[in-house]
């Protein structure tokens, strides 16, 4: 049974990766932060009595569900917006396209021993990796991040994604191949 301290440590260790996962999916900083907060609250409210070892797959499942719920709500909202915008002259354009490259801080104030050129190149590579991850199909990205970044095993990833272990392996393999190909095409080895 997880104590408050354990819960706090678990969330502190997970929150940044959770934020990035949500951000790759929704591509909006505020929305991603809201989703992570919702997931944290649900975990604490409903599953605080679970053993510490179960928290990671549970939290991932909650977060993924929150992301799906967000997309469902967006779909409904978009439907109504489309319907209503046909009555207004000009209509409303989508302005949610946040470029992940813009998200990286330009001057974080660390990495002092690094030359400006190296730093810029590293930032560029990171930006490219993030962009390519954002471009992956949702399920592939989810499987890849859960399996390799969150280091869940195949069974835990399958439980978090609500699919079979075979699907997890397939998604992971396709995601890795797609990423490797995309990075090679952009000159990153």
């Amino acid at each position, binding site marked *: *049974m997880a*104590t*408050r*301290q354990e*819960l*706090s440590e678990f*969330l*502190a260790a997970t*929150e*940044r*990766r959770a*934020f*990035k996962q949500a951000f790759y999916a929704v591509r909006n*900083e505020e929305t991603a*932060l809201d989703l*992570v*907060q919702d997931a*944290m*609250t649900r*975990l*604490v*409210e409903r599953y*605080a*009595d679970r053993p510490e070892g179960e928290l990671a797959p549970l939290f991932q499942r909650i977060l993924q569900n929150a992301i799906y719920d967000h997309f469902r709500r967006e779909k409904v909202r978009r439907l109504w917006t489309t319907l209503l915008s046909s009555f207004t002259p000009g209509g409303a354009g989508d302005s949610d396209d946040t470029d992940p490259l813009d*998200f*990286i*801080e330009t001057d*974080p104030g*660390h990495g002092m021993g690094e030359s400006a050129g190296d730093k810029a190149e*590293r930032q560029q*590579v*990171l930006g490219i*990796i*993030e962009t390519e*991850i954002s471009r992956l199909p949702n399920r592939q990205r989810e499987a*890849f991040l859960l*399996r*390799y*970044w969150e280091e869940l095993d195949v069974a835990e990833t399958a439980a978090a994604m609500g699919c079979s272990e075979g699907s997890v392996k397939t998604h*992971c*393999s396709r995601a*890795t*191949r797609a*990423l*490797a190909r995309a*990075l090679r095409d952009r000159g990153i080895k």
Partner: protein
Amino acid sequence: MNEPAIAGRICRALDEELGQLPERVTARLAAAREAALARAPAPRNQAGARGAAAPTPAPAVRPAPRSDATWLRWLPAPVATVLFAGCLLAVWHWSDLRHAQERAALDVAILLADEVPLAAYADKGFGVYLRNTHR
């Protein structure tokens, strides 16, 4: 292609990027964590401390399973379904009745008036019926 190795390299790069999250994001995440922890059901550490002193199991601090509440939560769904079906039936019945009345009125107004044999007008009851319907 060595899949885990490639994935590992990508994930290391992602980990590196985590350290560069803007201050506003890390602050917001910390605030979100604190807000979530503030909603924890009950302090478990006190129960644990009592349990260490006395080996008898501590009384359950967290609220009892809300089986009744979950049952009640689903109650409105069938009630709403029945109400909705009732409304549909009422509308269908009302619409059917109205169509029947319209058809009857049409029969009286056109068909019956056109094809009534002359002898019918000699009938006293038919005269009363016509007077009543045209009033």
